């Protein structure tokens, strides 16, 4: 590697999402008060910051206010205050208000916004503070020296399907940094490698996820009030599955409809995209969108395990923040404000480390120490055993959660820490009786995956190696045999297609990597862990606007 392709910086942040940007802004603020040159750069795989960001989102603005005391948060694009909220339990054709509305779930004073738009706005503020954001560049490969992380290679481009350089080949760039901050979002592919290499999840619960599938609808005024939020339990899920739907009134004519499905489901034929389509057929939802028009589609994973599922948050020369670590408090269905606060404490730790010229794990452990003193940590601590309540049955879950509330979050386990099992272990062999009947999509209010994927704006350079790696074709065949290929169902973008047995050739999986919307469900849920998600070329992927 020639020096031509080497860049050096103090702090390299992977991912310009809310966590990566909050980290960089706070770090820049701290550096600004001292006489140290500001050298922080962010690599973002999306074409612009916010293009790969998707959330509901109902946000608690408190920590964003702490991050940006001088900024008027009313300037966030398309933000609106929560005015009305309902929690409903849906049966196939009815809806019931829940009798008890836990205070922790209240959204009074919170705001509905598009997290993607907020991230775009935050990116502008970060750049004003001297943070260098390089969008359209993915961190591809970790660089180690003497067993320690020292930087990241960006991906090469101009490769053919076999990975051989073509006439437009551009080599990777080597970025060396004293501290690397992993802010890749849920199931970051670099974070995953670091967790493995340094065994960062030892004695921890595995991270567990829900896949949130979301659509934005343009509706006639009066269909759903601006500032209204509705959360639902029940339909189309049975009591054996964790998940729920949401409807948010973003403005007078735009409504967000989404459905989150816990990936700890056991039926290999379950399909989270389909769950959203069924959800929209419920009379309660169908009424809202009956004269509407679909304008956007997307999906993302939510790390729901809580603080017992955090990997160790730091090690020599690196820290893990945001969804890559899992700052989500499930009872309130919130994480953005927690991620921002944690990112700020990580920035404090990075600042002290750079100042002292010591980036060892001992020095960076300040990050976790500082976060543990915040009210945001207390919020996560209170919810530490929440997700564990809901691993078998919804009603039993509420009972367990009730006990949780009485015992101050401790629950009934002896050491106060309830266990979780990784999502991929939950698949049960395909049972004929549990096959889902085919669903007919009317292309007015319900859409098949191909149609929905169009509304994600996703685009990939066709001339590149497939970015979804299948380790073993034999394992793939075994999976088809045993589970009837759950990938064809769990992927919300139809990247995986099952080509049935024909003319003596066994059934096999065909990949459509250019459909990918970067949710990484395949990497999480594949029952044999036979799929590895890698970033494609920079700027490829969905083009979320106002998501």
């Amino acid at each position, binding site marked *: 590697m020639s020096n031509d392709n080497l860049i050096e910086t103090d702090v390299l942040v992977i991912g310009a999402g809310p966590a990566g940007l909050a980290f960089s802004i706070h770090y820049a603020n701290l550096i600004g008060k001292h006489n140290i040159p500001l050298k922080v750069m962010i*690599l973002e795989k999306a074409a612009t910051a916010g293009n790969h960001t998707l959330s509901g989102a109902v946000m608690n603005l408190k920590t964003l206010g702490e991050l940006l005391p001088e900024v008027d948060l009313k300037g966030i694009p398309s933000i609106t205050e929560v005015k009305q909220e309902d929690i409903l339990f849906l049966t196939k054709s009815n809806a019931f208000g829940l009798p008890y509305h836990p205070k922790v779930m209240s959204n009074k004073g919170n705001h509905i916004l598009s997290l993607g738009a907020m991230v775009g706005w935050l990116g502008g503020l970060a750049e004003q503070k001297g943070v*260098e954001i390089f969008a*359209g560049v993915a961190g591809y490969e970790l660089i180690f020296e003497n067993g320690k992380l020292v930087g990241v290679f*960006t991906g090469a*481009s*101009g490769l053919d399907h076999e990975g051989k350089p073509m006439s437009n080949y551009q080599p990777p760039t080597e*970025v060396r940094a004293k501290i690397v901050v992993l802010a890749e979002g849920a199931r970051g592919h670099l974070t995953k490698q670091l967790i493995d290499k340094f065994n960062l999840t030892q004695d921890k619960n595995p991270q567990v996820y829900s896949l949130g599938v979301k659509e934005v609808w343009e509706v006639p005024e009066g269909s759903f009030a601006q500032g209204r939020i509705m959360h639902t339990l029940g339909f189309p899920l049975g009591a054996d599955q964790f998940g729920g739907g949401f409807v948010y009134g973003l403005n007078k004519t735009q409504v967000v409809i989404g459905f989150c499905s816990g990936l700890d489901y056991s039926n290999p034929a379950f399909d989270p995209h389909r769950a959203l389509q069924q959800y929209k057929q419920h009379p309660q939802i169908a009424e809202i969108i009956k004269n509407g028009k679909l304008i956007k589609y997307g999906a993302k994973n939510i790390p729901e395990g809580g603080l017992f599922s955090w990997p160790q948050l730091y090690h020599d020369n690196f820290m893990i923040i945001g969804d890559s670590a899992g700052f989500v408090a499930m009872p309130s269905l919130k994480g953005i404000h927690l991620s921002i606060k944690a990112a700020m404490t990580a920035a404090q730790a990075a600042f002290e480390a750079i100042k002292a010229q010591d980036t060892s794990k001992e020095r960076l452990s300040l990050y976790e120490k500082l976060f543990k003193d915040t009210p945001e940590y207390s919020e996560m601590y209170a919810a530490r055993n929440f997700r564990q309540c809901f691993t078998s049955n919804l009603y039993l879950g509420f009972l367990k959660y009730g006990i949780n509330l009485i015992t101050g979050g401790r629950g009934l386990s002896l050491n106060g820490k309830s266990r979780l099992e990784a999502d991929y272990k939950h698949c049960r062999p395909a049972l004929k009786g549990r096959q889902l009947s085919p669903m007919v999509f009317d292309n007015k209010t319900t859409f098949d995956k191909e149609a929905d994927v169009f509304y994600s704006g996703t685009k990939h*350079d066709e001339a590149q190696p497939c970015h979804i790696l299948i380790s073993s074709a034999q394992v793939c065949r075994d999976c088809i045999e045993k589970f009837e290929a759950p990938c064809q169902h769990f992927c919300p973008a139809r990247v995986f297609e099952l080509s049935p047995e024909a003319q003596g050739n066994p059934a096999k999986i065909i990949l459509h990597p250019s459909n990918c919307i970067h949710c990484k469900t395949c990497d999480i849920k594949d029952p044999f862990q036979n799929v590895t998600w890698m970033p494609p070329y920079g700027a490829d992927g969905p083009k979320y606007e106002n998501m």
Partner: protein
Amino acid sequence: MNIIVCIKQVPDTADIKIDPVAKRLLREGIKSMINPFDMYAIEEGLRLKEKLGGKVTALTMGPPQAESALREAVSLGCDEAILISDGAFTGSDTLATSYALSCAIKKIKDYDMIFCGKQSLDGDTAHVGPGIAGHLNIPQIVNVRKIQDIKEGRVTAHRMTEYGYDVLEAELPCLLTVVKDINVPRLPSLKGKMKAKSTAITVWKAADIQAEENRIGAKGSATEVWKVTTSPARPQGKIFEGEGAVDQLVLTLKGLMK
């Protein structure tokens, strides 16, 4: 070999909106990109520079936000970037635009080749490239799919035609418009993106390039827009499946030929 690449910033959306009064594209708040054909022009310029030395200058005319297109060109490897931008250019048709660009090129003065994409995604006229060559009174080869040779002050290139290609030779300086077949454009590297952030973009106004007032803008335009519409969305294709699909297809095609 000093090369100028003319590029245009176009809307990056399938959802084109038109101002019904001014009969122009609405660009405000719409994401934009470099006209895809111009990416091939940039790539060809860069490959020639890498082979023969010299420098590549990216040139565009447009509103101030066209600067981002030039920065992208620099991130790919262009050495310099010039934006001609002035309220006086507003309303320019292809005649006035090619005149203004030719004025800027005269000011750059030292050049051997000019590359353009064969046409723009939004206007689709394919006028501006040839227009520039006309104003500069230099030879041009359009729809180039391959540069065969450059030597002794002459370029030999393949011009794509409907059924094949012509081999043409022209004296330098010369203007070439290129088609997609000519190369595969590169993606910007991180290093290139860093350079793009720090490179200064030169901005010239109408007076800086000595453009005559009555030859630019609406005043200098030979055409008047009567009506602009977006082309209707293509209807969904038909899929024939299962047994007898081929027979059905043949029948349908025969029906269409009647």
